[in-house]
């Protein structure tokens, strides 16, 4: 190196908070990894609930929460991918409903012998295709993804209910029933009740792992974040925007398709009215997991944490004895408090930053 290091010392390059604050190390970790904040929150809530009602810590309740988180979790991973690319999606529930219902109908009416693996594959493929439609529209119409996906939510749901069917399918094909029932782990409680952890539970961690790999081990993951950070710049730097848009929406669609089939199998019936309406809650879970609604941030770990947070809160209301009239108030207050906790943790750190504006 020929230049004088004294002028080029990069003190500024170190994160600004790191210089004068002794506790900055921890604080800095929180800023960089907002998912840790959610993790702390999750632990705090679990401890609090366990203190109020120790039954919370029984394997049965943990297993129950685990399986309850699968569908939301799959959705959330998709939403996270789209948020990371700077978009948003409210149509994924409609995609899931579409995929699950039309596929179940298809298997019942046309191909009763279709193996389960093929059913899952078709569900993913179908979801991917519908997701790709979203991605294509978002890319070609160049409008905010929120608007496009509001449109496609109505469109997909409208097509499903108006043209495909509304009749509930109570008798699922046997292979789907078997898939929903196949148990990985059985726990028997004192009163003789058994709690089973079904195999399909694994779909969630597997999808999380896949998402993690895509985001952290492939160029696509970086391209998605790049697009979320600044789409124009990303385009200029050679990240093909069309590919990114198609990919994230298709990926989210695929996950939604999968979620739909899991939902049907777990539920043992196909109700075309299901799922639509839960999208805002899923988005809330992802945002609570540290992804910003403006894009370019977030992590898979955070998303999983966010999903667990929402699942736990929704599943302990009775356990801690909150009467049903008060449950909405409690969940609403929880979301606000969690978000406030989140923001103040982050805000404290940012005020140390040299950035001028709040």
């Amino acid at each position, binding site marked *: 190196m020929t230049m004088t290091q004294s002028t080029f010392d990069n003190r500024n390059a170190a994160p600004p908070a790191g210089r004068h604050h002794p506790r900055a190390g921890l604080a800095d970790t929180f800023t960089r990894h907002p998912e840790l904040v959610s993790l702390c929150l999750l632990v705090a809530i679990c401890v609090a609930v366990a203190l109020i009602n120790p039954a919370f810590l029984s394997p049965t309740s943990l297993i129950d929460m685990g399986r309850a988180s699968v569908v939301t979790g799959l959705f959330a991973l998709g939403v996270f991918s789209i948020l990371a690319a700077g978009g948003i999606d409210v149509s994924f529930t409609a995609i899931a409903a579409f995929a699950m219902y039309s596929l179940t109908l298809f298997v019942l009416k046309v191909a009763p012998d279709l193996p389960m693996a093929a059913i899952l594959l078709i569900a993913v493929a179908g979801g991917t295709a519908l997701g790709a439609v979203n991605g294509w529209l978002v890319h070609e119409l160049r409008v905010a993804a929120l608007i496009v996906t509001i449109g496609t939510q109505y469109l997909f749901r409208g097509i499903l209910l108006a043209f495909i069917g509304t009749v509930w399918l109570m008798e699922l094909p046997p292979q789907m029933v078997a898939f929903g029932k196949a148990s990985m782990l059985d726990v028997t409680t004192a009163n003789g009740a058994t709690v089973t952890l079904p195999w399909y539970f694994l779909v969630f961690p597997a999808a999380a792992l896949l998402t993690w790999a895509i985001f952290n081990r492939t160029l696509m993951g970086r391209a998605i974040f790049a697009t979320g950070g600044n789409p124009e710049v990303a385009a200029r730097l050679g990240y093909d925007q069309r590919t990114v848009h198609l990919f994230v929406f298709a990926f989210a669609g695929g996950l939604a398709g999968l979620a739909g089939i899991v939902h049907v199998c777990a539920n*043992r019936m196909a109700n075309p009215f299901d799922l639509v309406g839960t999208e805002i809650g899923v988005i809330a879970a992802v945002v609570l997991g540290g992804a910003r609604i403006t894009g370019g941030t977030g992590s898979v770990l955070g998303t999983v944490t966010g999903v667990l947070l929402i699942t736990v809160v929704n599943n302990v209301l009775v356990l801690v004895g909150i009467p049903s009239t008060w449950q909405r108030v409690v969940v609403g207050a929880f979301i606000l408090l969690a978000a406030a906790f989140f923001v103040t943790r982050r805000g404290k750190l940012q005020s140390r930053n040299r950035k001028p504006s709040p």
Partner: protein
Amino acid sequence: EGTITTVVKISGIPWFDRMETGVEKFAEENADMTISQVGPAQADSAQQLQIVQDLVAKGTDALAVVPMDPAILEGIFKRAMDRGTIIVTHEADNQMNTMVDVEAFDNAEYGAALNARLAECMGGEGKWTTFVGSLGSRTHMQWVGAGEENAKQFPGMELVDPNNESFDDANGTYEKAKEILRKHPDIKGFQTSAGNDVLGVGRAIEEAGLTGKVCLVGTGLPNPSAAYLDSGAITAIGFWDPQKAGMAMNAVAKMLLEGKELTDGMDLGVEGYNSVTLKDGPGVGKLLIGNGMVLADKDTYKDYLF
């Protein structure tokens, strides 16, 4: 001549699909009239209100409505009747502005009957809980209320965490039921209200291997509940036939259109409504109560295949 439109809470679900078969049957029998059924795409009283309002504006002669929420429709019903539209309702015994409200049975009797069946299964003792579609659903609250009242006969029965909301969503009900099973491992009974509740709770009981140990009695339809009834996860279901209710509503509407008089004990020509009770309703109209209540279990549900 004359149009009767049936407006249901939400279209597409089994209950109202069954009702539609009744409406269609009635339409066949009255080929000279224009008879149809519609309903909103979402379970939202505001959407139903819009449909009713548009139908009134369109000039439909008679409306047979199953209100999502009777209170919300009071305003438009009043205006409709002022305009000369015939209004008949169902499942709305508190509706002020209706000409006739057709009930398949007395709600208090029904709730008590469900509970009696539950108590019988539970042997009159143990913890039990209740589910309603939503806290805002009046009939559901009436049923569980009557159930609670009935359970007082059995000092051994202890009601815990009552009035859980199911939102008529089988999956949500399933989660909630599991949570209750965890919190109260010694629970013995569930009394449920919305059509899907038995499916969710039934699945929770079956998966926990508690079939036969926990009793479940609630409103449900025979076909969807069949598997759980067979396995014993559902002890018994209570219901009335929406097909018959649909026909009854339309029959009443037709009579009103023709200017005929309704009388106590009359026969509407519909099964379960062969000898109806006619009372003054809470408002301007009459309350017409049939005897359409059905309680079915494993052995008897096959008689009602819908």
